[in-house]
């Protein structure tokens, strides 16, 4: 039996009767001032599916209501208790620092659907010159769309300026999205945070989606944490 790890918490975090991936009982392994939220898993690898992804999230949401938590990447399977304890003690300093930074914080996602015509169907170029002209036109169109996405994000961002602790944004992460942004806000303020955004003041063809509150996945400082 291996151990699936959901996240890192202060060692004194307690919670009861929580079930995790594959309905396994969730428990905390403590080492020094830290704890790892775990459940048993019978294989070192697992197949990502909707049910298991939500199980991971539900456990973290449950813990998040009781105190700070550093979410772990999906699929973090460790060998046994001593492997878990070893990682907790080895990286205790960084985990403690991150927990204190993220204490009382949640994240909110904002996604804007792209209001542009992104039909890529252009005619087959008949010669080298038209090929190059097509390329150039395409590049210009992309630059213009990135600029529009940036301007749209800035408009949305202006509504919430000064009400968050940290943020990050990706412009045009894929063809159907103008931007995907995430904001770190105080727990309990997520609804107020999105209510500041007045969609009536944005172009009619813009559609925004808000998700959360999430555990602070995106704001764990992985400069030191990712190997």
């Amino acid at each position, binding site marked *: 039996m291996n151990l699936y*790890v959901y*996240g*890192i918490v202060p060692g004194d975090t307690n919670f009861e009767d929580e079930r995790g991936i594959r309905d396994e009982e969730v428990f905390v392994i403590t080492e020094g001032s830290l704890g790892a939220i775990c459940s048993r898993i019978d*294989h*070192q*690898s*697992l*197949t*990502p*599916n*909707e049910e298991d*992804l*939500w199980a*991971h*999230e539900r456990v973290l949401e449950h813990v998040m209501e009781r105190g700070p938590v*550093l*979410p*772990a*990447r*999906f*699929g*973090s*399977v*460790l060998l046994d208790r001593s492997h878990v304890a070893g*990682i907790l003690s080895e990286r205790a300093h960084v*985990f403690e620092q*991150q927990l204190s930074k993220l204490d009382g914080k949640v994240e*909110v*996602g904002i*996604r804007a659907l792209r209001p542009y015509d992104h039909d890529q169907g252009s005619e087959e170029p008949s010669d080298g010159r038209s090929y190059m002209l097509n390329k150039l036109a395409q590049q210009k169109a992309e630059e213009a769309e990135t600029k529009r996405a940036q301007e749209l994000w800035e408009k949305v961002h202006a509504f919430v300026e000064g009400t968050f602790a940290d943020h990050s944004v990706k412009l045009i*992460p*894929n*063809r*159907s*999205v103008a931007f*995907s942004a995430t904001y770190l806000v105080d727990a309990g303020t*997520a*609804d107020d945070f*999105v*209510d500041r955004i007045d969609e009536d003041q944005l172009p009619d063809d813009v559609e925004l*989606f*808000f*998700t*959360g*509150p*999430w555990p602070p*996945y*995106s704001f*764990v400082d*992985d400069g030191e*944490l*990712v*190997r």
Partner: protein
Amino acid sequence: MSRLDRRGDVALIDLLDRLLDTGVVLTGDITLSVAGVDLVYVGLRALIASVETTKEMKWDAALREAPQPTPIENR
């Protein structure tokens, strides 16, 4: 009523983004089994989106256009 989606289709896409691309990496060898093959990756999104099983799930076009995953070394 809250404008925040917690369990809908968009939340699922955001969840996938977060769980597979962010969060503490506790060990160098995160192994996920995709289409019956164990693979060691950090950037798993594109990989996972490319397999048949996820087509049943409501991932949007987003995932099919994700950057290529970067293999990491086993410890």
